[in-house]
């Protein structure tokens, strides 16, 4: 084909030469003028010792897309020249009309090769033809979809000068393509919508895959494929937002990593990037990294039983290059799980762990520290380190006292692992085996771990009620309606949240003696004066002796649903107070409820009766002691005197 057009061109030029000579001085330049010579089938010229036909088929030209144009419209250098023209006309420049295409082509691989003077580089007519160019959509077009493989294949096939003399990385392009799913669809099934060469490489902007502007550059390949496979990410990765493939193409496997260019088949990973190819080397238990000597062995059995059993090596180890003998030699970065687990990755990066990793802290845990590598299991698998019952041990690896995370911790929580194990949550989880019990990650989250001081932390005081409320929902509702809830409390002081009373890691069952007694201390930390007066009453005194049966703060005020006394819903409102007393004192009446549970005899304004009773009694006490004491002291010398006297005369029986 190439050869033919070469000959045609030569003939054509020769014909022009002859015409120019014969028609010198003539001005009329109708197409018929040109065809006067070039309409002759035998018109030819000798070029390089070869006969080149210069015949232009008027019929074909008449049906071409350029039929309406004069010959000199393209052969513009002949314009106004006398016909027949003597010298061969210049090569036709399509640019004046096809400006954009010309520009694209000039910048393309082909265009630059032409600029370099590469004789093998294709020009417009090499693909599009000469006088018989028809519309692309016309099935007769040289660049109609079903012909494209052959148009490109002219040069890009085995044995062609281009394939032999130029550096083309791919081999058997045409063969592979024709066997690929695209090629089969196009060539065997006649599906003209199937991808052809130009669908991926573009028609005119053909660039090296290393060029960032190239349609087959890693960054753009997804966009290129999704021109047709527009919903493909839904099939592949439901959790990846569509744009991720394009935005973070460097961290994701590109389409061609798995679906080899030109060889794409519906059968997945049979060739090239299949796990089997990786396992050729990594299945050897002895394989070690040349640097550092760590083992690079991949236990396929472990991988098969993992959560990622359907994930190919290259999906995680994404920088592989399929065209290399060792596709993995192009890998420069560690596996980035956020390629697929994008949301989790984003959370992790904001967490303390993630921020430390960003600072290159060697102690900071990355994904595999907790989740493992090839054997990664789901959190519902009891063998997984992230299974609830294994989480305390998992976190303890760093957060146990003396370990690398604990030694840099400066807060007040210590021995957290041991304390947790003794707490109600720890016992529930580890002794009772309740996997729904709160573990480290239930409160601290798994991936958004942040220090208490951070407002976004799940354990920041502002968020603690909702964190605990994820399990203790009913309590949270009560708490949020209580005076202690920040949205209701009318104070500028810091209001308590769950852990202020229940502690963070030492949480006890609320029905244990120890908890019941310490809770009063907890209330007293803020309600200092009122707690003191409570301890002046019978209830308080018994509690202080270490017994829990008498009323404590929460028995009357409620625990989580503490409300202002004036609130009708308060346990101590006028409506409810008698019933509250009746919990312990079944015979309680409204008068009984008038007992002052926080009475103090030190406040004459508030409790005059108590104040004056106390001082009356104290006066009586002091008066009696003063009189009695003085009487006794005054008596003492005389009594001693009497004894001395008595010792003389007779020993008495009573003092034997």
């Amino acid at each position, binding site marked *: 084909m190439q050869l033919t057009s070469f000959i045609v061109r030569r003939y054509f030029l020769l014909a022009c030469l002859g015409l120019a000579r014969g028609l010198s001085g003539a001005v009329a330049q109708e197409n018929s003028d040109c065809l006067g010579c070039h309409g002759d089938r035998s018109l030819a010229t000798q070029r390089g010792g070869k006969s080149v036909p210069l015949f232009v088929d008027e019929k074909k030209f008449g049906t071409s897309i350029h039929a309406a144009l004069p010959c000199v419209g393209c052969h513009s250098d002949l314009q106004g020249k006398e016909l027949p023209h003597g010298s061969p006309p210049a090569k036709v420049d399509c640019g004046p009309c096809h400006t954009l295409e010309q520009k694209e082509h000039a910048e393309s691989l082909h265009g630059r090769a032409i600029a370099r003077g590469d004789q093998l580089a294709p020009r417009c007519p090499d693909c599009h033809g000469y006088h018989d160019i028809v519309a692309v959509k016309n099935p007769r077009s040289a660049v109609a979809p079903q012909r494209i493989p052959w148009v490109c294949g002219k040069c890009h096939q085995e044995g062609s000068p281009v394939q032999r003399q130029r550096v083309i990385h791919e081999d058997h392009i045409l063969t592979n393509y024709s066997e690929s799913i695209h090629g089969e669809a196009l060539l065997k099934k006649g599906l003209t919508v199937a991808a052809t060469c130009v669908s991926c490489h573009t028609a005119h902007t053909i660039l090296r895959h290393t060029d960032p502007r190239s349609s087959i550059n890693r960054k753009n390949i997804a966009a290129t494929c999704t021109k047709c496979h527009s919903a493909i990410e839904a099939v592949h990765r439901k959790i990846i937002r569509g744009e991720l493939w394009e935005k973070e193409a460097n961290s994701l496997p590109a389409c061609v990593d798995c679906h080899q260019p030109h060889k794409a088949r519906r059968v997945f990973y049979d060739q090239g990037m299949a796990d089997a190819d990786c396992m050729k080397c990594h299945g050897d238990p002895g394989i070690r990294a040349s640097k550092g000597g760590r083992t690079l062995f991949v236990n396929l059995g472990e991988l098969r039983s993992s959560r990622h059993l359907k994930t190919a090596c290259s999906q995680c180890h994404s920088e592989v290059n399929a065209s290399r003998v060792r596709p993995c030699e192009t890998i420069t970065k560690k596996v980035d799980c956020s390629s697929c687990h994008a949301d989790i990755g984003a959370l992790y990066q904001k967490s303390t762990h993630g921020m430390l990793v960003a600072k290159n802290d060697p102690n900071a845990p990355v994904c595999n520290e907790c989740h493992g590598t090839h054997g990664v299991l789901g959190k519902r698998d009891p063998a997984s380190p992230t299974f609830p019952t294994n989480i305390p041990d998992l976190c303890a690896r760093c957060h146990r006292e003396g370990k690398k995370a604990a030694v840099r911790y400066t807060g007040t929580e210590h021995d957290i692992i041991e304390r947790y194990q003794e707490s109600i949550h720890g016992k529930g989880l580890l002794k009772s085996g309740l996997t729904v019990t709160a573990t480290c990650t239930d409160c601290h989250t798994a991936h958004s771990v942040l220090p208490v001081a951070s407002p976004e932390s799940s354990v920041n005081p502002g968020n603690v009620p909702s964190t605990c409320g994820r399990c203790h929902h009913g309590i949270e509702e009560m708490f949020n309606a209580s005076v202690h809830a920040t949205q209701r409390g009318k104070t500028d002081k810091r209001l308590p949240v769950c852990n202020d009373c229940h502690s963070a890691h030492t949480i006890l069952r609320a029905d244990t003696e120890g908890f019941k007694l310490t809770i009063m201390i907890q209330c007293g930390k803020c309600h200092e004066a009122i707690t*003191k007066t409570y*301890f002046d*009453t*019978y209830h*308080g*005194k*018994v509690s*202080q*002796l*270490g*017994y829990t*049966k008498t009323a404590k703060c929460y028995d009357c005020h409620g625990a989580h649903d503490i409300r202002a006394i004036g609130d009708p819903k308060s346990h101590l409102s006028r409506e409810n107070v008698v019933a509250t007393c009746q919990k312990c*004192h*079944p*015979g*309680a*009446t409204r*008068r*009984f*409820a*008038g*007992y*002052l549970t926080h*009475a103090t*005899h030190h406040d004459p304004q508030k*409790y005059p*009766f*108590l104040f004056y*009773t*106390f001082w009356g*009694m*104290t006066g*009586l*006490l002091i008066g*009696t*002691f003063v009189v*009695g*004491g003085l*009487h*006794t002291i*005054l*008596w*003492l*010398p*005389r*009594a*001693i005197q*009497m*004894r001395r006297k*008595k010792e003389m005369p*007779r020993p*008495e*029986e*009573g*003092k*034997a």
Partner: protein
Amino acid sequence: MTPDEGGSRMEPRAEPLQGERQYLRFSRLNRILHVVMIVSFMSLALTGMTLKFSYTAWAGILSRILGGYETAGYIHRMAAVLMGTIFILHINDLARRKRREYGSWKALLTGPDTMLPTKRDLKDFVGSLRWFLGMGPRPRYGRWTYWEKFDYFAVFWGICVIGSTGLMLWFPELFTLLLPGWTINVATIIHSDEALLAVGFIFTVHFFNTHLRPEKFPMDIVVFSGRMPVGEFRDDKPAEYEALVNAGKLDEHLVDPYPPIVIRTIRAFAWTALGLGFGIVVWILYAMLFAYQ
């Protein structure tokens, strides 16, 4: 505790034992009542103080020794019932003796052995003060001295005040059917402070005045044995002694002393009570002076 009024004069004579015969000052009933009262009072004091001084570590320990606050409360109430019983028995004894010996309350209350304060008591009190200050001789005390009468009525008062407020605290639901709720708070203060007064007074002033006076040292056990040597009786209560001698009735009041084993038992009990009492005083002082909250 307090000496009670009037011992029976007609104590039946036992077989004469070795040693001198002794003056019988307290009847058997009164002696028993005093011992029971000691037990009751100590129990009340110990159990009550654990609550009053609950802020001391001691109280917690003691409360646990006593079996917890509920058991302690039970002991407290039972001891209170015992105390009430003693009170009733004593009133009953008075009524019996009024019938048998005096015929009328007036005779009992105005007789020479009355527990009611008299002019003579005022005279004795002034005389005592003069004696203490070296301005006169020791008054010639009669059967019941003014400080013994004070102790007696202090108990009367104490039982009424502490007993009534104690009932309020025992049955608050009942009492608040009539009284406002804050009266329970008032009752608590009265009960607690009056008890403190009683405990403090008895374990210091009363102990000294009646048991530990130097001339009686180490201990006067007459309230347990009922007997005192005639010589001591003569020195201690000269007026009563002389009245009996002049009336020629001294002999009616003499009995044989208890054998040493009984005396030793009495002493052991008395020392225990005394030690317990002093222990409580020390605890009170510690609680009020060093650990007050």
